[in-house]
């Protein structure tokens, strides 16, 4: 949707985070079936640009929106608008992951 403007990886990552608020590289890479290193590189770039912030939880680095980023409302507004143009299939497949908790040991 915004691939030409932002690049494919950045566009997917930002649309994903706009839908779920926070995420880590392995989860995003698995969601889109793209390489982990490409996602990690893109997340680091977005953090260096001030768009995202991260913190370690255990040994996983979790990224989320930087609430202090000056253009955050505008960029999220753009992403939200772009998501309206996704097909139902794309929305379900890539941008609607389960975010509610799953009790440990519960059979899938």
């Amino acid at each position, binding site marked *: 949707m915004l691939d030409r403007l932002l690049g494919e990886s950045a566009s997917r990552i930002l649309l994903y985070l706009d839908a779920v608020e926070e995420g880590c590289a392995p989860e995003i890479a698995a969601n889109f079936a793209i390489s982990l290193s490409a996602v990690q590189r893109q997340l680091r770039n977005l953090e*260096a*640009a001030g768009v995202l912030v991260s913190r370690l939880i255990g040994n996983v680095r979790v990224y989320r929106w930087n*609430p*202090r980023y*000056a253009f955050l409302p505008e960029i999220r507004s753009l992403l939200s608008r772009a998501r309206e143009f996704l097909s139902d299939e794309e929305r379900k497949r890539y941008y609607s992951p389960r975010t509610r908790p799953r009790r440990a040991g519960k059979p899938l």
Partner: protein
Amino acid sequence: MTKISQTMSIAELAALVCQHLADRNIDAVLTGGAVVTIYSENEYQSNDLDFISTAREKHIDTAMRELGFRRKDRYYVHPDTAFFIEFPAPPLAIGNAPVFRVGEQRLPTGLLKLLTPTQCVMDRLAAFYHWNDPQALRQAEMVTRHHPVDWDEIHRWSVGEGHVDKFERFRDGSKRPV
């Protein structure tokens, strides 16, 4: 030019770097914890100098190398000082508002551009408001104990950020006796 040394204060080093960049037409403004150190008269200690600049990265890199700094990940380090320097991504902003007018301090090592005490307090409060960071709250309180700030402006800005309750907590904390 003054030589960078271990005995140099954070303000002296910041001014030296700022002046060196300005001499090369690179505008840079000191923000973050280093400004708290300067305004709190070292009550808070930071080793991290954050400069915001809209100059191209390669121009900044050339200027920093001229001073003897080398890049290590996102930071610039120097063999003769424990302080390290970072250039976070622009723009210079507090919350969603751009910052145009900043403070200046003339030091023997050069002219330092930095956030004013009021801007510094708002910068710290932004971290407290958005991340509940108690350290940032204490740093904001420290600045108010050492420098007069524009309380009306901070209040207005806090209302705009939607954090009046936290502003009141900060105001009450700032009135505590030292």
